[in-house]
C-alpha cells in the first residue's frame, strides 16, 4: 500500500503508537491466511463427512434397487396327463406321487415349444434350455397342478422365475464374458434371452416376492426374500417394546423422582452409563450364556433376540426418559403436591403425561437402534438359520427359530453367489426405510408435542 509497508514490522515492545489501521502489516496478513486455511480445513472436514454419507447412500441405492425387480419368463406349459395323472381320475393324492423332478420334462418341452413359437433357432435341447429358469420352477408348477387338478391336460401359461444368471444379465450384472467359466449358463443362452425379450416372453418387473418372501437355499438367489426375517424382527421389536418401555420408564422415574442421593443410586447410575457403552457383542455373549445355556430358551428364537436387545436398548431409553422427566418444571410437581396429591400421584398424574412425548420419541429411537443391531444376534443363532417358513401363530412367532432383517442381510452377504449381494443391498434399503420411518415419526412427535416452558 503506502509507505507503511516499507517500515519494518513493528515487533519490539515499543510498538509505534498511531500506526494506521488501514494498512495491514505482514504479520496480520500471514495470520489472516492462517485463519482462512483453518476455516478451509473445517469446511473440508464437513464436506468429507457429507461426501461419505452421499457415497454410502449412493452405493446402497445403486446396488440395492435391482433387488426389487426380477426377471420372469412367460411360459405356456402343457400339463401332460400321461405323466401327471396316469390314472386319469384327478385325485390329488395320487397325483402327488409325481415328484417335482417329474415335472422337469414338461418344462423342457414347454421351453422347446417356446423357442419354436418365437422362431428362435437353437440347437439346445430341453435340459440345457431349462438352465435359463430358476430351479424353483418345477415346484411352482407342481403346487399349481396339485391345487388345480382339473387343469391337467390343458396348456397353462405360467410366470416363472428366470435363473439368477439370466436375471443378472437383464440387470447388467452378468456379462457374456463372465459366463465362459460358468457351468450353468453359456453365452448362447443369453442370445436366446435377448430374442425372448424382443418377443415379450421375458420381462423384468417389480418383485413383491423379495419383500414378502422367505429366504431360499444357497443356489436359488432369485427366489430369496426378506419377508420372513422381517416377521422375526417384528416379533423381536414387540418383545423390546413390551419390556424396555415399562422397565425403562419405571427405572427413570425412580432415578429422577424418588431416588435418594446414596451409594445405591450412584451404583445404578454408573451401571447405566457403562452399559450404554458396552460393546453389543458382549450382550450377545450374555444372551447366549444366560438365556440359552442357563435359562434353556431355544436358539434362534425372536424371544431371546428381543430379550438381548431389550437389555441393550434400556440405557438409551432410560437416558432419554430421564431427560424428558427433567424437562418438566418443578412447579408442576409443586402444584400437584400443593393440592394434597401424594408424591406418587404427582408423578403419575402430572409429570409422566407431560413427559410422554419425549419418552416415546426416545423409545422409538431406541427401537430403531435395536432393529439395526446385528452382532448379538450372531451369537444367539439367528444367523445361519435359513428362514424359509412363516411362523405359525403368535407363540411360534416368539419361540420358533427365525432370522431377523440385519441377520438375514449378513447371511446373504456371506454367501458366495454375487446375486446374493444384490439381495443384501436390497435388504439394507428395506431396513433403512424402516429406520427412516421410525426416525421421522420420532421427529414429528417431537415437533408436534415439544413444549417450551
Amino acid at each position, binding site marked *: 500500500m503506502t509507505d507503511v509497508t516499507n517500515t519494518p514490522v513493528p*515487533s519490539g515492545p515499543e510498538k509505534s503508537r498511531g500506526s494506521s489501521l488501514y494498512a495491514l502489516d505482514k504479520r496480520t496478513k500471514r495470520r489472516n491466511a492462517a485463519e482462512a486455511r483453518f476455516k478451509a480445513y473445517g469446511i473440508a472436514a464437513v464436506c468429507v463427512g457429507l461426501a461419505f454419507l452421499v457415497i454410502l447412500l449412493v452405493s446402497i441405492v445403486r446396488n440395492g434397487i435391482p433387488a426389487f425387480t426380477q426377471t420372469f419368463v412367460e411360459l405356456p406349459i402343457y400339463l401332460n396327463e400321461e405323466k401327471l395323472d396316469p390314472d386319469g381320475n384327478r385325485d390329488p393324492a395320487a397325483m402327488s406321487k409325481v415328484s417335482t423332478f417329474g415335472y422337469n420334462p414338461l418344462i423342457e418341452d414347454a421351453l422347446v415349444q417356446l423357442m419354436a413359437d418365437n422362431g428362435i433357432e437353437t440347437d439346445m435341447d430341453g435340459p440345457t434350455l431349462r438352465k435359463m429358469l430358476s430351479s424353483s420352477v418345477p415346484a411352482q408348477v407342481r403346487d399349481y397342478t396339485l391345487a388345480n387338478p382339473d387343469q391337467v391336460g390343458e396348456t397353462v401359461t405360467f410366470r416363472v422365475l428366470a435363473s439368477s444368471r439370466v436375471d443378472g444379465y437383464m440387470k447388467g450384472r452378468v456379462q457374456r464374458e463372465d459366463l465362459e467359466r460358468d457351468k450353468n449358463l453359456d453365452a448362447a443362452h443369453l442370445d436366446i434371452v435377448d430374442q425372448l425379450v424382443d418377443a415379450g416372453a421375458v420381462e423384468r418387473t417389480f418383485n413383491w416376492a423379495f419383500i414378502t418372501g422367505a429366504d431360499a437355499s444357497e443356489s436359488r438367489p432369485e427366489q430369496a426374500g426378506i419377508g420372513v426375517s422381517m416377521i422375526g424382527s417384528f416379533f423381536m421389536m414387540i418383545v423390546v417394546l413390551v419390556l424396555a418401555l415399562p422397565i425403562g420408564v419405571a427405572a427413570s422415574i425412580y432415578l429422577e423422582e424418588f431416588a435418594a442421593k446414596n451409594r445405591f443410586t450412584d451404583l445404578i447410575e454408573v451401571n447405566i452409563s457403562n452399559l450404554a457403552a458396552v460393546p453389543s457383542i458382549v450382550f450377545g455373549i450374555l444372551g447366549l450364556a444366560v438365556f440359552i445355556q442357563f435359562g434353556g430358551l431355544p436358539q434362534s428364537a425372536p424371544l431371546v433376540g428381543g430379550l438381548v436387545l431389550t437389555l441393550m436398548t434400556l440405557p438409551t431409553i432410560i437416558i432419554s426418559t430421564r431427560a424428558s422427566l427433567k424437562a418438566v418444571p418443578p412447579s408442576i410437581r409443586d402444584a400437584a403436591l400443593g393440592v394434597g396429591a401424594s408424591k406418587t400421584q404427582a408423578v403419575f398424574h402430572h409429570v409422566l403425561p407431560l413427559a410422554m412425548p419425549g419418552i416415546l420419541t426416545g423409545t422409538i429411537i431406541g427401537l430403531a437402534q435395536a432393529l439395526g443391531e446385528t452382532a448379538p444376534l450372531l451369537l444367539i443363532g439367528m444367523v445361519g438359520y435359513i428362514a424359509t417358513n412363516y411362523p405359525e401363530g403368535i407363540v411360534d412367532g416368539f419361540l420358533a427359530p427365525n432370522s431377523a432383517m440385519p441377520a438375514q442381510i449378513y447371511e446373504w452377504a456371506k454367501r458366495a453367489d454375487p446375486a446374493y449381494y444384490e439381495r443384501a443391498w436390497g435388504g439394507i434399503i428395506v431396513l433403512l426405510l424402516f429406520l427412516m420411518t421410525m426416525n421421522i415419526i420420532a421427529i414429528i412427535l417431537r415437533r408436534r408435542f415439544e413444549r417450551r416452558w
Partner: protein
Amino acid sequence: MNQMPMTSENVTTMPTKNTKITARDVQVYYGDTHAIKDVDVDIEDRTVTAFIGPSGCGKSTFLRCLNRMNDTIDICRVEGAIKIDNEDIYDKKVDPVQLRAKVGMVFQKPNPFPKSIYDNIAYGPRIHGLAKSKADLDEIVEKSLRRGAIWDEVKDRLHAPGTGLSGGQQQRLCIARAVATEPEVLLMDEPCSALDPIATDQVEDLIDELRSQYSVVIVTHSMQQAARVSQKTAFFHLGNLVEYGETDQIFTNPKDPRTESYISGRIG
C-alpha cells in the same frame, strides 16, 4: 427531546487535538431492535471516560462497538462512523484483529484463560509477534504485570494456573493481559461488578494509574465509581446518549433532567 440538540451541540464541537475516538451518528441494531440511536461522542486520549446509565441502556453495546467485538454476534449491525485517530474502524480495509490489538478490552467477569499466569499475559504479545526473544517476552510479562499492579502477588508463581487466583487478582491479571499487547485504548465493561469492595478499590487505583498512558473507557453501574475514577462521563438512556461532559459537571450540575433523575436515584 428538545434537550438533545443542545447536548449534541456540546459534543460535536471541533475535536480537540487530544481526541482519540470520535463517533458520529452511530446506530446499532440487534435484529429488529434499535439498540443505539444517533450517538455522537468524542473520547479523549489519556483520560478515563465513564459510560453510565440504567441496565439495558446500550452503554455496553456501544463500548463493544469501539473494538468491533459486536462483529462476533451475527444479528448485530452497526451504522454511522466511529473513528480512532481519524481512521474509520468500520472501513473495509480495517482488520478487526489489528483494531483489537490497538483497542484492548477487559470484561465484566474476569476471564483468565485456563493457562498459566505467564501464558495468559504472553498470549497477546505472542499472537501479535511483539517479542523477539524469550527474554523480551519475560520483560513484557513483568512490565505488564507491574502495570496491572499484580506483579508482587504473582511473581513467585508465574507458572501456576491463572484460574487459581482470587477474583480481584484475576481481574487485574486480565487488565495486565490487555495492557501487554500495547493498546492505545482500553475498554472496560463493568470491570468491578464481580469483585468485592477491596478488590474493587485495587482495580480502581489501577485504572487511575493507567490513565497516564491510555485512553480508558469504562462502563459502570456504579455512579460512585464513575465519580471516583473518571474525568469525563457519558450518560446513556434507552439507547440515546443523553449527556456527555466533565464528570464533575455531570454529577453536580447535570443539564438534562433525565440525567438528574438518574443521578438522584429516581430512574435506573
